[in-house]
C-alpha cells in the first residue's frame, strides 16, 4: 500500500490574516486508504489548513494538487464536488429537518418530479443501520443524540462519494461506545480506499487510528512522518515546541523561586462534573501558592476554572472556600467568596470594548465605589490611578476606550479589575497569551508578587515553560479528569510532558455513564 500515489499533495500553503501568519509554507500529503493525523495546540493553524482544504478560505500562496489536478477552491461547494468532505466539530447539519432529509439534502430521491419521501426514509434507515444508528429517521435531527448526528454527517459525506474525508475532532462529544462505532466506520472507509485527515487531541485515538502524522506549530510543519515509530513523549514535545534535552537549561520567564506551602487549603473543589467536559475534577489551593493546571487542548483546564467561579453550570460538584461551601455557585457568589477568574478569551469574556479603561477596571467593583447608586468619581479615580500605575497600563488616560489598547494593556486592565476587589484566589487562564514580550514578563512578575503577598493563584498556561517556572505545584488534566499532581522537585517539564502523554484515564473507568 505504501507505494500508492498521494491523493492530495499540498505544498507551501501560506495564509496570512491581519497581524498573523496563520500558515507558513505548510506541506501535507494524503494517501488513499490511510488515516493521517493532524495535531497541534491552539493557534497552530490546524483550523486554517482544514478550511483551505475544504474551500472555506483561499490560500495566499502554495499549491494543492488533488486527484492529479492543481486545485484552488473558491467555495466549499467546489471542494465537495471534487470529493473532499469535511465533518466539523460542530456538526454542520440542519437541526430542524428530519434525519432522512439531512442525509439526502441536495440529492433527494424523486418520483415524477416530486420528493419520494417514503423511499427516502426507507433508504435513510438502511444506510444508517450500516453505521450502527437505529433512530426514527423522520424525527428532526436536533432531537437525536450527538453521536448519532455525527454518524449522519459521516454517512452523508460517504454517500457523496468523497475521496477525502476531513474529520475535525469528531469524538469530542461522543460516548466511548459511539467512539468505537466511529472507528470501525472509519476503518471500513479506508479499506475502500478513502483518505482521511483526522484532527484530534486525544493521543490514544491517534495511535489507534492513524498511520501517519503531521504536527503543526505556529503555522509551520514541525514534524511529519509515520506515527508508529514516534513515541508519545516525542509527539507531545513536538506539539509544545520543547526539545526533550534542552528543557532544563534555559529560563526565560520572569518567575522567582518555587515556594513550598503547607498551610490549610484556601479553596477546595471536589467532584466537579459536567457531561462530556469534566469528570470529577478535584483541586485544592493554598494561600501564597501558585497551582498550575496542565493539560493539552480540550483537557478541561478552562472549564475547571470556570466551574470553580460558577461560570460553567455543573451536573455535580462542590466548591469550598475556607471550609465553607459556596452555595448557589455563581460568578457573583464566587466574587463574594473572594475568587476571581481572568478568562482565556479576553475579547469575548473580558473587556467591554466601548467602555473606558476606568469603567472596565471598576466593572466588578462598581457598587463598592458608589454612593446610593450614584457613581462616585473621586473614589474611582483614586483606585484607577493606583492600578494604572502599579500595573503600568499604557493608555492615553483613564478615559480612553479599552478597545483601542494593545492586547497586553487590555490584559492588565482585566487584572486590575480583579485585583481592585482584593481577591484571595485568582484564577488566571492563559494570562500571557497573545501579548507582547514586555507585557508578558510584567504579568509573570506580577503573578510571583501576588503569591508572595499571600494570594492563592491558579495558573493555566499552554506555554509549558511558563507553567513549570510559575507554578509551585501542577495538577495535570486529561479528558476532563485529573491524572497527576506534581509537587516540589517533581515540577519540571519532562514530568509534565510524561503526564500529558499518558494513557487516557477514561479508558479504564468507562462505566461511569
Amino acid at each position, binding site marked *: 500500500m505504501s507505494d500508492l500515489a498521494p491523493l492530495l499533495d499540498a505544498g507551501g500553503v501560506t495564509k496570512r490574516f491581519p497581524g498573523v501568519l496563520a500558515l507558513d509554507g505548510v506541506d501535507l500529503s494524503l494517501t488513499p486508504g490511510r488515516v493521517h493525523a493532524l495535531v497541534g495546540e491552539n493557534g497552530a493553524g490546524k483550523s486554517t489548513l482544514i478550511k483551505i482544504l475544504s474551500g472555506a478560505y483561499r490560500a495566499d500562496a502554495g499549491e494543492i494538487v488533488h486527484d492529479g489536478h492543481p486545485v484552488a477552491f473558491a467555495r466549499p461547494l467546489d471542494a465537495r464536488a471534487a470529493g473532499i468532505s469535511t465533518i466539523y466539530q460542530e456538526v454542520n447539519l440542519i437541526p430542524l429537518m428530519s434525519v432522512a432529509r439531512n442525509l439526502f439534502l441536495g440529492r433527494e430521491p424523486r418520483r415524477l418530479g416530486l420528493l419520494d419521501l417514503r423511499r427516502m426514509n426507507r433508504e435513510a434507515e438502511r444506510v444508517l443501520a450500516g453505521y450502527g444508528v437505529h433512530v426514527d429517521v423522520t424525527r428532526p435531527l436536533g432531537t437525536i443524540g450527538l453521536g448519532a448526528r455525527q454518524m449522519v454527517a459521516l454517512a452523508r459525506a460517504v454517500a457523496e462519494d468523497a475521496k477525502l474525508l476531513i474529520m475535525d475532532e469528531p469524538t469530542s462529544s461522543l460516548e466511548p461506545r459511539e467512539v468505537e462505532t466511529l472507528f470501525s466506520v472509519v476503518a471500513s472507509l479506508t479499506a475502500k480506499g478513502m483518505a482521511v485527515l483526522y484532527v484530534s487531541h486525544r493521543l490514544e485515538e491517534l495511535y489507534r487510528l492513524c498511520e501517519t502524522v503531521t504536527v503543526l506549530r505556529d503555522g509551520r510543519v514541525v514534524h511529519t512522518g509515520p506515527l508508529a515509530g514516534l513515541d508519545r513523549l516525542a509527539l507531545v514535545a513536538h506539539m509544545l515546541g520543547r526539545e526533550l534535552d534542552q528543557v532544563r537549561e534555559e529560563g526565560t520567564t520572569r518567575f522567582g523561586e518555587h515556594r513550598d506551602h503547607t498551610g490549610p487549603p484556601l479553596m477546595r473543589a471536589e467532584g466537579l462534573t459536567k457531561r462530556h467536559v469534566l469528570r470529577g475534577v478535584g483541586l485544592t489551593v493554598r494561600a501564597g501558592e501558585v497551582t498550575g493546571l496542565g493539560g493539552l487542548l480540550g483537557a478541561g483546564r478552562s472549564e475547571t476554572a470556570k466551574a470553580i467561579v460558577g461560570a460553567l453550570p455543573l451536573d455535580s460538584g462542590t466548591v469550598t472556600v475556607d471550609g465553607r461551601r459556596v452555595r448557589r455557585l455563581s460568578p*457573583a457568589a*464566587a466574587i463574594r467568596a473572594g475568587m476571581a477568574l481572568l478568562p482565556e478569551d479576553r475579547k469575548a469574556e473580558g473587556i467591554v470594548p466601548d467602555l473606558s479603561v476606568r469603567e472596565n477596571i471598576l466593572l*466588578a467593583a462598581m457598587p463598592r465605589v458608589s454612593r446610593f*447608586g450614584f457613581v462616585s468619581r473621586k473614589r474611582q479615580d483614586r483606585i484607577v490611578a493606583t492600578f494604572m500605575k502599579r500595573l503600568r497600563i499604557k493608555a492615553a488616560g483613564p478615559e480612553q476606550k479599552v478597545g483601542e489598547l494593545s492586547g497586553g494593556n487590555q490584559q492588565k486592565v482585566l487584572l486590575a479589575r480583579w485585583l481592585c476587589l482584593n481577591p484571595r484566589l485568582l484564577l488566571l487562564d492563559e494570562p500571557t497569551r497573545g501579548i507582547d514580550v514586555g507585557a508578558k514578563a510584567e504579568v509573570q512578575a506580577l503573578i510571583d508578587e501576588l503569591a508572595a503577598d499571600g494570594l492563592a493563584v491558579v495558573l493555566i498556561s499552554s506555554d509549558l515553560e511558563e507553567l513549570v517556572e510559575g507554578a509551585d505545584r501542577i495538577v495535570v488534566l486529561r479528558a476532563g479528569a485529573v491524572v497527576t499532581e506534581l509537587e516540589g522537585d517533581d515540577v519540571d517539564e519532562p514530568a509534565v510532558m510524561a503526564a500529558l502523554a499518558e494513557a487516557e484515564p477514561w479508558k479504564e473507568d468507562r462505566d461511569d455513564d
Partner: protein
Amino acid sequence: MTTDTARPPASRRIALPRVVQNYGVYAAVLALLAYNAVFTPHFLDGANLRTQLVQAAPIVIVALGMALVIGSEGIDLSVGSVMALAAAIIPLYLGFGVWPAVIMALVAGMAAGLFNGTLVAVVGLQPIVATLALLVAGRGLALVFAGGQLKQLHNPDLLALGDGDLAGVPVIVLAAAALTLVTAVLVGRTTYGRRLVAVGGNRSAAALAGLPVRRILITAYVLCGLFAAVAGVFATARLTASDPSAIGNLAELSAITAVVVGGTPLTGGRIRVLGTVAGALVMQLVRATLIKHDLPDSAAQMTQAAIILLAVYIARERRTR
C-alpha cells in the same frame, strides 16, 4: 496585501464616520432649522416651534426608554401597544381622579415591561421575538379594556396634561425634557446605568464580573414600558380621548428610528441620550419641512426611510473588526 500596509487605510476609513456619527445628528438638526429659517415662511414663529416640540415630545419619551433597551443589546417592539394599553386603562380609573388613573396606566406599562424583561432575561428568548408577543397582544388587550371603542374624556385635569402650559412651555415638552435629564443622569452617573451599558457591551464579561445581568436587563425593559406608558398618557390627554386602536400606532418604529439616528448602535454597549432626543427632532423636522413644502406624506415617509438607512450605514462602520 501585507499586514503593515493594511492598517492605516482602515483607520482612515473609520475616522470620518466617527465624527459624523458623534455629531452628525446635531448638525442635521441645525441644518434643518437653518434651511427652514430661510426657505419656509413663519417657521421660526413661536407657535410653529411649539407645535414641532409638542409633536416630537411623545416620540422623545418613548425613544428614551427604547435607548435603554437597545443599549442592552435588545429591542422593544411593544412600546406602541403599551401606549395603547395605558390609554385604555385611563378611563377605567378616571372616576377616582386623574392621579389614580395615571398611576394605574404607568403600573400597566411597567407590568408589560416586566413581562418582556422576564421573557428576555430569564426565559432567554430573543428580544425581537419576546416583545413581538406584546406588540400583538398588548393592543388586543387594550381593545378589550376599552370595549373596542373610542372614549371621549372630559376630565379637565387630564386634558391639562395635553394642552396645558407651565411658565409658557407646554407640559408635555417639560415632561420630555425632565425625562431626558433623568435618563441622562441614569445612564451616565448611576451604577445601574453603567452596568446596563456594560451588559450591552459584553454580556458574558459582565456575567463573569458578577453583575446581576438578569436584574439589569429586566429593569431596562420595565423602564422602557414605564416610559411608553408615560407617552401613552400624554398622547391620550392631547387627543382628549382614549383610542386604543390609534394611539401609539407605529410608535415602536419611530422610537427605534430616533435611537438609531441618534447614534446608539443596535449592537448595544453605548447609549446616547441627547443623540436620541436629537434623532427624534430630526425626524420631526424632516416631516414638517416636507409637509410645509406641500410634498405628500408618502414622500416624507420615503425620506425618513432614507435617513434610517444612512444612520445605520454610518453606525455600521464602527463595528468592523
